């Protein structure tokens, strides 16, 4: 039954800062989803938020080539997706202008779509930056 997986041990992985890492990132996530029997809705949501934040770090945090650390945790009533990127400049997701969802086609501009959707899909998103380490945590309830 989806969503009834037991609260488990946090799992962590490190991935080279490259778009080509996405296959490995998705495989890492798939093991977690299967272990906790999270169901297709949560699976889709977790894929989306994880990819978007990961690719944002790849594209924008170019000052460091250190691996991106990903942690997944089943907290009982919700799932945590945590990404940590070390030795990077700050970037606060809340500093991004809201997406104009009512804008007509000709006024649509690249950028902001992924973050808008992450915020829409997630229950909570927190951002921490300390000693040049960026941590983004996304929480999504288990239905």
């Amino acid at each position, binding site marked *: 039954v989806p969503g009834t997986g037991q609260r488990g041990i946090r799992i962590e992985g490190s991935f080279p800062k490259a778009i*080509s890492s996405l296959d490995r990132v*998705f495989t890492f996530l798939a093991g977690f989803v299967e272990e906790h029997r999270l169901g297709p809705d949560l699976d889709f949501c977790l894929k*989306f938020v994880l*990819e978007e934040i990961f690719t944002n770090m790849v594209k924008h945090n170019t000052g460091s080539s250190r691996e991106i650390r990903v942690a997944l945790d089943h907290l009982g009533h919700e799932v945590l997706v945590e990404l940590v990127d070390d030795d990077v400049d700050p970037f606060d997701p809340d500093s991004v202008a809201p997406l104009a*969802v009512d804008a007509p086609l000709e006024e649509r501009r690249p950028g902001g779509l*992924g973050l808008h959707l992450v915020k829409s899909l997630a229950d909570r998103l927190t951002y921490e930056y300390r000693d040049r380490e960026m941590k983004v945590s996304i929480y999504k309830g288990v239905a």
Partner: protein
Amino acid sequence: MFEIEAAAADRVVLRGRFDAAQEARAKEVFDRISGSCTLDLEELSYISSAGLGLLVALQLRLSRDGEGVTLTNVNPHIRELLRLSGLDQVFAVA
């Protein structure tokens, strides 16, 4: 796995997981589309904002010539992304 196939001049079929790593492959196919077309998403299980951005760019280019994109067989998860981003008002969704 991701596949993109121009099944006809006006019909493209997308399958699998359309993540950011697939941008170049998809763009190559989209760049060859010159008139109104249908994108069949029946077997597309996932799309990222990178994929959605390519769809928007295609729609924008075609619309300048009075043409457009129709999305068919959109699964509920992708339909929700379209709704949350307002892109369900940008594309014809059949």
